[in-house]
Structures are given as C-alpha cells and as structure tokens.
C-alpha cells in the first residue's frame, strides 16, 4: 500500500535509477520512472567485466579499507573520500543482494561467488557473471522493479524523455517536464523530488563505447537551469576498444584481468602476421614499464602508453592499433570466463580472438565528472538528486575498472532514502500559480521552433563534427592551444545550430527532433568539458597535458565547478575531502605503498581510516542496515 503524499520522480532506468526506485518503493512511496528506452535496454547492460567488492574469499587479505584506498589512489586523490569509503564498505552487501536476486555470478568449485582481478588493484575483488555482468545486474533490478510495478508503487514512463526540472522562484525543484517520444506531447509532472540517473556523456565525443542514448542531454538541461556541474574535464578513455564505423566497442578490462597481454612488434611498421612474430621480437610494453601491475595498470596509464607507442610508430603496421593477446590461454577457459566479449569481437571483426591476437585502440568510455552532489546525493538545487555515472562523486580523476556498477548501486541506495527524507519535510503540498504549465509551455515552444526552423545545416552532421573535434583535442593528450580552438569551434557550432533543418515532416515517433534537442545540450556541455580542461593546468588521472606533466596539488587539488551563464560556463574551485588518506604521489611501476590490512590488524596510523570508521558507525545509519558486519 502506497503511503500518501510523497511522489518521487526517477529519471533513467539503468542500475542507479532502478536501485533508487526500488529503495523508494521499499519505503512504501510512489515512484514515476522515466526512461528513453525500455529500462531493460539501458546502457548498464553494456558493462562487461564485473562489480567490485572486497569480500576476500581468496584469502588475500583484501578488505573494504583496501578497496577504499585503491579507489582513492586510482582516482589520483580527486574524489571526496568519505563517500568513497562508504561505497567500499557497502560493496560486499551489494554483491550479496544481487546474489540473492539470482544473478548467475560465476562460481568457485565450492559454489561460492568467484572473483577476478581488475586494474589498479592486486587483489581478486571483482565478482562477475561471465563477461556480461552489467546485463545480469540490470535484469535483476528490472525484475524487482516489475514486482513493484505489479503492486502499483512504480509507474514506468518508457519512451519518455526528461526535458527540464521545474524550479520555483526560491530555486527549489517542484517537478519536471518530459516529452512522450511517440507523440511529442510535453507534460509537466509535479513531484517532491527528482532523482537523476542519466548516465554518461560519451556521445559528445561522437564515437565512444557508450550507447546512443548517452548524450548527457539531461545533465546539460539541469546545468543550464542552475545546477552545478563538477569535474567535467575528467573523461575516461578506455585503453582497449575495437574501432568501428558506428561506435567503438569495448573490449573489457577483464580480458587483461584473465591474463591478456598487450604488445606490439619491437620493430616499427612490422607487417608480419602476429602469430609468426617470435616472442623475443614482441614488445610487452606495459609489463616492461610497470612490472608490479603489468597489463593491469589503471586505465588512464594504459591508455596513454598505448597512445604513445602508436604515436612513436610502433602501432600495428605503423597505424593506430596494438595487440591484445589471449591466445596463450586455453580456449575452454576463455569461453567460460570471457565468452560474451570474445563473441563481440568475432561478430564485429570476423576473427577468432582465441587464436588470433585482437587489435585494439583506446576509446572514450566513462564520465568521471558530472552533476555536483553532496553526501546525500543532492545537488545544489533542493529537491534534485543525482546518482551513478551522471554524478561526479566517486571516481575522482580516473575510475578503476568494475567500480562503476558498485557506484551506481551505492548512489541509488543513498539517494532513494535521502529523497524520501527530503520530501517528508515541510517542503511540499503548496500550489504553484502556473509554474508547471509555464515550464511545459516553454519546452513545447522549443519543439515548435525546431519544427519550423529551415536552413542548410544537418543536426547529425553537426554532431559528427563536434565529435571529431572533441575526440581529437579533448581526450588522451590535451594542449591549451587546441583546447582554445575547440571552444571557438563549439561556439561556431552553437551558432550554426540556429540554421539546422531537422528534415522531418512526420512528427509521430520522430527521432530527428529529440536528437536535435540533445545536440544543443551536448554542445553546451562540451564547452564545460573543454574549458574545464583548459583551466586545469596540471596532469592528474585521465587529464594529461604535456605542457604541465605533473600533478599540482597546491593549485588543483580541487573540484572544478561550472555554473551556466548565457556567455559560457563560469568556473570556481572547491576543496576536496582528503580527511582520511593524505595525498601522495601516484605511481604504478612499483607496488603501491598501500596500508597493509591483514586480518584484524588496523592500518597504519597515517591513514586515520579505522578511527573515522568507528566515528561514522556511531553517527550515521548505513543505507544497507547491517553492512558493517561485513567490514572485517
């Protein structure tokens, strides 16, 4: 039975959105769930490798504290540490929750969940369901949401597009507007809190590993109405993607986690078949440069090394590709642990990676930056929350592999109850003179303008042009001159956007009009990314400038905050929460000086973690009530 009064809107039906919806429904409140696609087809489905949680079933001495330390270090100290620690503490309970939902996690002979290794850690910490973990986790939550739908607590609006928040004169959110993608009807939905779960922004770079809905349009709409956007310049370029005409397809880090080796021929321009190149004429450059972590250095480092090797002329046949080699592993083991991703390679490239080394190159993959949120996942606008990839909070300057799924669930588990708590206050129940209707009208007018606008420009071609500029200049290696040119280009594209003709005369189920709306929002957010990168004169995590090759904590151990103005983003900088682990230099060629946490031994004093943990256990109730018992 639904409790009266409170209504929460969740935007996005991936892992973060579904987790939020479930948490709200479990508290007995009604949820309106908006999604561009049937939620089962959300981008979370693409996550391959696994989900991190330090359960230490391999007896390696892993613990949530070590996971916490790895994540903060991997993120080059840009993440707010308190939230990261809470996520790592919750991670084992998250994996167990999915286990109880029936996710077919791969098993050990004893019937326990099996764990594999991923980048940036030396422990087996990643639970996985073959190589389609995201798909399995998404389905598990989708199934649970279907239960709540049957009970009348969740109402799904699939094929509906979020357009804007409805914000009153006191800068408080009172609802949202959305568009029915069949009819283009714009409707305002009053509600007490809006939780955003709209994923990453990969499509701003044209081709990426992201799904076609990952444009960041919703985030940008919020930004343009006064919501702060943080660390926009931190975009993860995944080291191993399969180049394609329509997109870059991810080749999961689990390929390296299971023993895959990255190499190029020692002689530049060597055109022999890879199988015929003898061992001593192969250059395993990651293993050579990073003996402690080898092929499992964090993504930003692997990406730059692969990029550099190709720049130096050692790419396959002198081009922009390197080998990712699994051929030394028995085919049976590969099928069992990596079947789904090997199948992707086979289907799209037409070669069998069990017998021929794969050819891969880095591709835009993950958005570390995003909507600014506090520890309750609430933005600077009361009533608007953000969760998962669209928020900025967990991954700092670089995300570790298999941490994204866990961060989606953590954020949803925090935001759901927080949104209910917020809505239970005295902030709702008022009437608003035409506030909702006014915003719906404004949005409908944008549609009419696009329908009637004529001119020589095509929105899909403008999108392609933006993507090429962004990929060339705002990814692996960034130069200030190029960043300035890119921003000038983006302004030119915004100006040309005024002459776009959507080439559409039938508006029923049109995709041209929604795409054009996305494009405008992508252009605005592209400027945040580019100018944020321009201003950050240092190198940290995924953000690398040869002109400023060192990390500069004195000036830039700060969160970048962008606020919209009609003239362009205005930037300010906020201190990072470093209350638990003092920043130190991040290196992976030697074993990281990590706190040695074995058994019940506390970590060394300089990490202050245990004391803080105790404090927090007393202060704050955990969204997963009993998870403290998993923290050993």
């Amino acid at each position, binding site marked *: 039975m639904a409790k009266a009064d409170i209504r929460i809107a969740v935007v996005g039906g991936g892992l973060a959105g579904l*987790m939020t919806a479930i*948490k709200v429904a479990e508290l007995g409140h009604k949820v309106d769930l908006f999604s561009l*696609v*049937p939620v*089962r*087809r*959300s*981008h979370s*489905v*693409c996550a391959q490798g696994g989900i991190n949680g330090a359960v230490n079933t391999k007896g390696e001495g892993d613990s949530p504290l070590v996971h916490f330390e790895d994540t903060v270090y991997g993120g080059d100290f840009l993440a707010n540490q308190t939230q990261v620690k809470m996520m790592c503490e919750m991670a084992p*309970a998250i994996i*167990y*929750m999915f286990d*109880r*939902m*029936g996710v*077919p*996690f*791969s*098993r*050990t002979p*004893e*019937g326990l*969940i099996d764990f594999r290794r991923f980048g940036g850690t030396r422990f087996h910490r990643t639970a996985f*369901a073959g190589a*389609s973990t995201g*798909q*399995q986790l998404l389905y598990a939550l989708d*199934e*649970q949401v*279907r*239960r709540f739908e049957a009970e009348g607590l969740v109402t799904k609006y699939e094929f509906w597009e979020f357009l804007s928040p409805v914000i009153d004169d006191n800068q408080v959110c009172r609802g949202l507007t959305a568009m029915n993608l069949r009819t283009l009807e714009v409707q305002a939905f009053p509600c007490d809190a809006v939780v955003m779960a709209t994923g990453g922004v990969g499509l701003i770079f044209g081709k990426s590993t992201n*799904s*076609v809905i990952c444009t960041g349009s919703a985030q940008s709409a919020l930004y343009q109405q006064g919501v702060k956007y943080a660390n926009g310049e931190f975009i993860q370029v995944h080291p191993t993607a399969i180049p*394609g*005409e*329509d*997109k870059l*397809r991810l080749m999961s880090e689990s390929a390296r986690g299971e023993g895959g080796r990255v190499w190029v021929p020692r002689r530049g321009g060597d055109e022999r078949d890879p199988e015929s190149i003898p061992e001593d004429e192969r250059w395993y450059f990651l293993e050579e440069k990073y003996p402690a972590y080898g092929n499992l250095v964090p993504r930003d480092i692997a990406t730059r090394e692969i990029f550099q090797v190709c720049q130096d002329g050692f790419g396959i046949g002198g081009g922009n590709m390197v080998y990712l080699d699994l051929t030394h592993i028995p085919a049976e083991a590969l099928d069992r642990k990596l079947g*789904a991703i090997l199948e*992707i390679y086979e*289907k*799209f490239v*037409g070669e069998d990676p069990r017998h021929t080394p794969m050819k891969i190159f880095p591709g835009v993959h993950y958005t570390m930056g995003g909507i600014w949120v506090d520890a309750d996942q609430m933005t600077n606008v009361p009533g608007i929350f953000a969760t998962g990839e669209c928020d900025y909070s967990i991954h700092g300057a670089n995300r570790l592999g298999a941490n994204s799924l866990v961060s989606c669930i953590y954020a949803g588990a925090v935001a759901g109850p927080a949104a209910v708590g917020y809505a239970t206050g005295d902030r709702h129940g008022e009437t608003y003179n035409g506030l909702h209707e006014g915003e719906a009208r404004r949005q409908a007018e944008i549609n009419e303008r696009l329908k009637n606008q004529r001119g020589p420009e*095509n929105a899909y071609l403008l999108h*392609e042009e933006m993507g090429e500029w962004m990929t060339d200049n705002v990814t692996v290696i960034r130069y200030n001159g190029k960043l300035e040119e890119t921003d000038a280009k983006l302004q030119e594209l915004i100006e040309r956007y005024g002459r776009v003709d959507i*080439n*559409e*005369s*039938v508006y*029923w*189920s*049109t*995709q*041209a009009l929604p*795409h054009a709306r996305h494009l405008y929002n992508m252009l605005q957010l592209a400027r945040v990314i580019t100018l944020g990168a321009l201003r950050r004169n240092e190198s940290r995590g995924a953000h690398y400038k040869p002109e400023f090759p060192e990390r500069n904590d004195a000036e830039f151990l700060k969160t970048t905050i962008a606020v919209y103005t009609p003239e362009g983003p205005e930037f300010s900088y906020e201190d990072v929460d470093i209350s638990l682990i003092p920043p130190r230099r991040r290196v992976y060629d030697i074993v990281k000086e990590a706190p040695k946490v074995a058994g019940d031994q506390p970590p060394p004093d300089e990490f202050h973690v245990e004391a803080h943990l105790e404090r927090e256990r007393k202060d704050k109730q955990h969204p*997963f*009530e*009993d998870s403290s018992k*998993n923290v050993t």
Partner: protein
Amino acid sequence: MADTIRLRIRRQDSPDAPTRWEEFDVPYRKGENVLTCLMDIQKSPVTSGGRRTTPVVWESNCLEEVCGSCSMIINGRARMGCTTLVDKIEKPITVEPLTKFPVVRDLMVDRSRLFDGFRKVHAWIEIDGTHDLGPGPRVAPEVQAARYDMSRCMACAICLEVCPQVNSHSKFIGPAALNQVRLFNTHPTGKMQRDARLTAIMGPGGITDCGNAQNCVKSCPKEIPLTDSIAGLYRETTWYGLLGWLKK
C-alpha cells in the same frame, strides 16, 4: 566493391498509415553494419531517385548486440541490425520491420507483449528486501553455467518473430518467456515460486502451444538453448499437473 550500397527499406509513417518502399544509396565503408547505413540516411535523407524524404526511424541503443533493441528483417531474415555486417550479406539490402508486432513507425515496432509475458510468468525472485541479509545460496558451477546461458536473453523478440505458433490467432506466450521460467526455476531460491510460474504457463497460450518447429533455437542471436528450456518445462509441468491431479 562499389563505393555505395543500395538499401530498400519498407516504410510506414504511423501504425495506421500505408506501407511504401524507398531506396537509398549510402557510402560503403569496410566492416560497417546495416545500422551504419541507416545513420548515413539520417545525415542526408534523400532517396536514390533524388527525392527528399524523412529520415528512417528504427530502434537501437548499444550497437553491440546486448541491449536487444535493433531486431529487424534484413534480406528476409529476422536478425539484429548491429551485428549484420554489410560485407557478409547480399546487395541490394532489403530492410523491413518485424512482422509479428504492431509497427510504430518504419522499422520501429511495439514489443511490449514480450515484457508483459515476463510479468505474467513471474520472472523474478521474491527477495525479502534489498537490505543486507548476507550471501545468497551456494550454487554449483554446472548449475550456474546452465543458468548463465539462459540468462543472456536480451528480449530482442526474434524467437517470437520466427515461431510459427506466434501469430494473430494465437495467444502463445513464446519461447523467451518460457526460457525465463526455466531460468528462475533452476535457481535454489527461485525454485520456491516454481508453482506460480508453472501455473502461469499451463493455461491457454502456455507451453502446450509450442509446436516444436525449433525455429527459435536456430535464430536466437545469443544461441540460448531455448528448446532445452522448453523440453525441461514440459517435464516439469507434466509432473506438476499429475501431482495436482493426484492431490484432488
């Protein structure tokens, strides 16, 4: 190889509108798939006869055959647009919407009956809540391996499209939903709601409507052993029916 590819696309402006064929010439690039060709049409929606038209509408998302969106009929065969490589099929390429579902527009169809089927068969595990209740039950690796194969169903609906028993005069729920029943009934906790799922597939439109044509298993892009799932359910429902009868 020619520099351009010709596509023949069956189009329809709305559910009630008449259908028509339109032809397009799009640039050829090595290794591209059919969706890349559709994207080229968006960039220049002009027919091969030089007439301006509207961009073709279709459903897609991940482009790597895991979201299940882009099922369509290509050269007469139901398959995923993203994994249909232009180099491997005959030209000109004919593209049509699935035929067993109402057309929304062009290649986009309404597959909500598939999800309705999942709801009908109780395709979930009744957990007590998402709060921490410790690990789930232990699962033998062989059981997990068998369930994993079934779990990869991406709701593309191709198994319904190719099934002769799924048609306008039948209520057959189709192979995808039956596979879900098997998936959840083989899980140690899922077993506890086994009866509810079996009951759901024993009435009209249930498992006995399967005609064993085996088209589903041959067409499944994820090679899910759909007919094994159905055969297993046949045994389960027979026993369940028999026991139910004995209890009377």
